[in-house]
């Protein structure tokens, strides 16, 4: 019978889509194949969605015009907005956008679960397992929804990045968790028939769980410093995956289960990798540890008047022009000043003079992982010139000049030497090992961690106080003049 064939086809299409997600993620493990991987994954998504349309389009009960309208218009609006934002967002604003998409994803998962629950309520379909999956989907979905929104707002600066400690925050958070738990128990027992609850009551309980989840998301993320947001977003990302899988159990759809579980697990691993790269443990991130936020950046309090040697563009230009090897260390300041093109111009000028120029990329330089790579790549700096920390660190002692542009914490020797320092133990770029060091920044202002950097008072270091972009421009001019 054709009907059955269509269903089989739909199922196989869903399966193919899921497989495409896996292979796509696999190829995204390496820069060379990453883009193709993402497109493969996108193709899988297209297949899965189309199959779904076929599925609903051919359902025996037929498809009302309202649903058709809902699906059509909804897709156009949602897709349109997503496309627009994705197209127009600035490179450096991408993380908060990802977080935004994550939020709506979590929201959608919660809505699906809620809707299905309302539908099965009071019917034999309202089994214990359904109740469990619904509650899980709803709770996790709601937490991600608000949590991701807050994270996004923090990165965007709509909410101050520094940890915001709510009155009785921890207590509140725990209370919410308990509330949600009680609600869950009630609904599950209700579904099992152990206790009798009127549908209205059940809905009320579900409402309470929703509210608790939404609030929990806020109280969970607010106390975390803006700097830890990338990790938090990744964590919430993995949550959303799980929520989607739960929704999949609720409406009993394989592709939701597979894709959701896939993201849940992969996202979890990824979160760990990110936390490790920033040398933070997930636990004390979520427990809101250090995570200072941007507060101090941009002309923070003066550092200790330790003997600082200022140096002018012309002197720097001469050092650079006659060096045989120069290492550029970009940091958050480069991003703020949008100086990526200026630095490339300088580098090319030097290369033209036969100077060997490399870029030392600290995994957490800037405010998101890969921040520097994204920026420099945008300025068409050849990818192979970007060296990861472990590869470049041995080369600093051999470099003639190290040019630090708007980087601070990632070069701070205190991370190696001073156990009492908040960044103690963080792997840093061994800039201080170089023969000569030039630092471009606007002042003695502190970095994200809000601590002084003894590198600046190091006799080998010359400070060129300027906005990164202007400073580099003056160097370009000066080098040309040499």
């Amino acid at each position, binding site marked *: 019978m054709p009907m059955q064939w269509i269903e089989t086809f739909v199922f196989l299409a869903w399966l193919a889509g899921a497989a495409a997600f896996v292979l796509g993620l696999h190829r995204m493990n390496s820069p060379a194949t*990453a883009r193709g991987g993402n497109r493969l994954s996108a193709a899988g998504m297209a297949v899965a969605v189309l199959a779904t349309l076929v599925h609903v389009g051919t359902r025996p009960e037929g498809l009302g015009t309202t649903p058709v309208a809902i699906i059509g218009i909804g897709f156009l609006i949602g897709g349109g907005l997503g496309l627009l934002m994705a197209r127009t967002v600035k490179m450096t604003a991408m993380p908060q956008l990802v977080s935004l998409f994550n939020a709506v994803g979590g929201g959608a998962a919660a809505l699906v679960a809620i809707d299905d629950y309302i539908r099965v309520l009071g019917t034999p379909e309202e089994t214990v397992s359904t109740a469990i999956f619904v509650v899980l989907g709803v709770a996790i979905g709601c937490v991600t929804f608000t949590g991701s929104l807050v994270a996004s707002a923090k990165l965007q600066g709509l909410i101050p990045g520094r940890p915001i400690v709510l009155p009785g925050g921890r207590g509140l958070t725990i209370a919410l968790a308990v509330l949600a738990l009680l609600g869950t128990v009630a609904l599950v027992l209700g579904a099992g028939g152990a206790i009798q609850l009127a549908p209205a009551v059940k809905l009320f309980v579900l409402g309470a769980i929703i509210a608790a989840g939404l609030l929990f998301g806020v109280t969970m993320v607010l106390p975390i410093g803006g700097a830890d947001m990338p990790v938090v977003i990744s964590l919430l990302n993995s949550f959303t995956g799980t929520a989607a899988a739960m929704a999949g159990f609720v409406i009993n759809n394989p592709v939701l289960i597979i894709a959701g579980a896939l993201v849940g697990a992969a996202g979890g691993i990824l979160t760990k990798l990110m936390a490790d790269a920033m040398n933070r443990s997930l636990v004390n991130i979520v427990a809101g540890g250090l995570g200072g936020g941007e507060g101090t950046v941009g002309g923070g309090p003066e550092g200790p008047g330790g003997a600082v040697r200022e140096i002018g563009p012309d002197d720097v230009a001469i050092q650079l022009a006659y060096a045989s090897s120069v290492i550029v260390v970009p940091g958050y300041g480069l991003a703020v000043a949008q100086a990526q093109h200026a630095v490339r111009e300088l580098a090319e000028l030097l290369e033209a003079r036969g100077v060997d120029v490399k870029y030392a990329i600290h995994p957490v330089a800037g405010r998101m992982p890969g921040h520097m790579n994204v920026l420099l790549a945008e300025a068409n700096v050849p990818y192979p010139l970007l060296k990861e920390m472990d590869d470049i660190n041995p080369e600093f002692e051999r470099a003639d000049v190290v040019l630090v542009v708007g980087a601070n914490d990632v070069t701070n020797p205190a991370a190696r030497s001073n156990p009492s320092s908040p960044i103690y133990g963080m792997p840093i770029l061994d800039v201080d090992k170089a023969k000569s060091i030039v630092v471009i920044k606007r002042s003695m202002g502190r970095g994200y961690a809000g601590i002084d950097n003894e590198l600046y008072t190091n006799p080998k270091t010359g400070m060129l106080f300027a906005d990164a972009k202007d400073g580099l421009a003056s160097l370009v001019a000066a080098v040309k003049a040499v």
Partner: protein
Amino acid sequence: MNQELLSSLAIFVLAVLVGFEVISKVPATLHTPLMSGANSIHGIVLVGAILIAAEADNPVSYGLAFVAVVFGAANVVGGYVVTDRMLQMFKRRPAAAKPATEGGGGSDAARPG
């Protein structure tokens, strides 16, 4: 538990295992794109949204389904596009031919999928 639920469970467990295995040692550079890529994948909830929209037969469901579809679509479309934009940054250049390729970054880029 009925048979159907059990096999769904098996599917879930296997998918989790795939998820664990599929992320190998990734260069830090790729963390954000990879996260964004995974983020687009859970846009699959769009499928769920479409399914409930088809079932919808009352104002409440209409409303819920509509919002769900909008959200899901935004997640899917936006997610893939922004990820693609991030990855655009990794396109190799002739310079890649330079000995510099020996460096960590270079060899990463060179590593076969």
